[in-house]
């Protein structure tokens, strides 16, 4: 369970990214964070991943108060979260297999386990034939799939996706979203996006953000501009 209680985030230069945001997300839930650029979607995902701390408020993840001063289990928290970054964060000197395997290596998986799990993930994202290719040999959509595969391997319970279909053509966008559909009900999935079509077609819970404030929390909702 992920719980935000009156969370605010003010950056050093004075920008208020989030203001008094509260919500609760149950395990295995599928949630979209929507809103225009600068609304605070990415900030919420980064707060969950503990890339930075909130200025105020409390964040509970699986009953652990990650904002508490006594919280020293950052590594354990992150091992439970798979993040698909907006800028992919793919390592260009490693091939597809190695990029995905990195996510398992930090979990101390052995070589046999890594081979088995990475191959399963490659099959899921449809990149089996490209496992030895390097990122420069891949299209944007394929790189995005590598990022998804890296996020879902290793029994990570929470998947955070920051604009996973940004800059992708409609066909690739839907192929990427099909992968999330396959994961539905198996993991807690939080997707930050401003793609109206995707949100409306999925009919899942939608949290709408505007200028750092949560303006709407709608089950089986849609998104209007």
């Amino acid at each position, binding site marked *: 369970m992920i719980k935000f209680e009156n969370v605010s985030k003010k950056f050093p230069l004075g920008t208020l990214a989030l203001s008094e945001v509260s919500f609760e997300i149950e395990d295995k839930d599928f949630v979209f964070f929507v809103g225009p650029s600068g609304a605070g979607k990415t900030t919420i995902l980064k707060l969950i*991943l503990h890339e930075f701390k909130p200025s105020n408020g409390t964040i509970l993840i699986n009953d652990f108060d990650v904002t508490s001063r006594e919280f020293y289990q950052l590594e354990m928290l*992150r*091992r439970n979260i798979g993040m698909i970054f907006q800028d992919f*964060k793919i390592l260009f000197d490693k091939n597809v297999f190695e990029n995905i395997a990195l996510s398992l290596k*930090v979990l101390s998986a052995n070589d046999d386990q890594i081979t088995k799990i990475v191959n399963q993930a490659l099959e899921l994202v449809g990149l089996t034939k490209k496992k030895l290719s390097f990122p420069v040999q891949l299209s944007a959509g394929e790189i995005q799939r590598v990022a998804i595969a*890296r996020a879902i391997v290793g029994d990570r319970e929470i998947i955070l996706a920051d604009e996973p279909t940004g800059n992708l053509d409609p066909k690739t966008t839907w192929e990427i979203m099909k992968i999330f559909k396959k994961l539905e009900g198996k993991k807690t999935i939080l997707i930050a996006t401003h793609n109206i079509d995707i949100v409306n077609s999925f009919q899942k819970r939608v949290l709408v953000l505007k200028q750092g404030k949560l303006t709407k929390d709608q089950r089986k909702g849609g998104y209007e501009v």
Partner: protein
Amino acid sequence: MNEVLTSIRRAPYQSLAAFMILFFTLFLSTIMFVSLSFFYSLLGYVETRPQVIVYFQTATEKNTIFKVRDKLMNSGKVESIKYVSKDEAYLIYKELNKDTPLLLEMVSSENLPASLEVFAKKPVYLSELAEFLKKEPGVDEVNFQKDILDRLLTLTNILRKSTIAFFLFLIFVSILVLATTTLFKIALKKDEIELLRLLGASKFYIQKPFLMEATLFGAAASFCSFFLILTLVLTLKPFLESYLKDIPRLTVSFLFTNLTVWPINLIFLAITLGLSLLFGLTLAIFSTLLATQKYLKM
């Protein structure tokens, strides 16, 4: 290991710099260790030699010599005294000149003086004892090795102090170069490290490749410097053998035991290699930990 080799391939000049500074430090440190061991063992050897030798005129009676010996023993400043009779002196002379028959023919036991080899309790008594002996009846000549001992002591002290100063300077420079090299390599892998941290990698997991590289460099530099020094010692062996021909064995005390430094001894070599390895690894790993801790703010 693959990661380490990749890291070396990606930053060959930085890797070479790290290796060279370690090699240079270990080479000089090992030379200093070997030299100090040698000087200390030489000092110990000289201290065990008769510190004052008094030669008596050939006509001096044995009783007169023994009276001098008794006086010395009663002074409380003497550790032990060895009496060398004319006959014993002749035997020593014969042994020393066995290859020169002409010299043996010219000398008999009657020509050689009896002597007392005096070991003082402290080096400071040497001058006093020498002055006392010069005034005794029947004494022909008094030899004492205070100058040699003092010079060796001074040399060893200077060497020890300068070694410590130079050693500390070397350590400082090495840590600086090694930490800077590691910081550069961390900067090259900045994206990967950031990603690893976000994926939940432990501190040790991120540090491990750098530590493995440091271990490899530390061990390689230790072995290289040791074998270079061994080659030098073996090359200089004939010279050392002729220079130290009268000294059968040099020992130095090390961890409650006496370690043979000369002739070249396997245990001493093994200890030197072991210490060089330990020092090389400690230096490399400490510098790497310093750099990673600073950069990763762990």
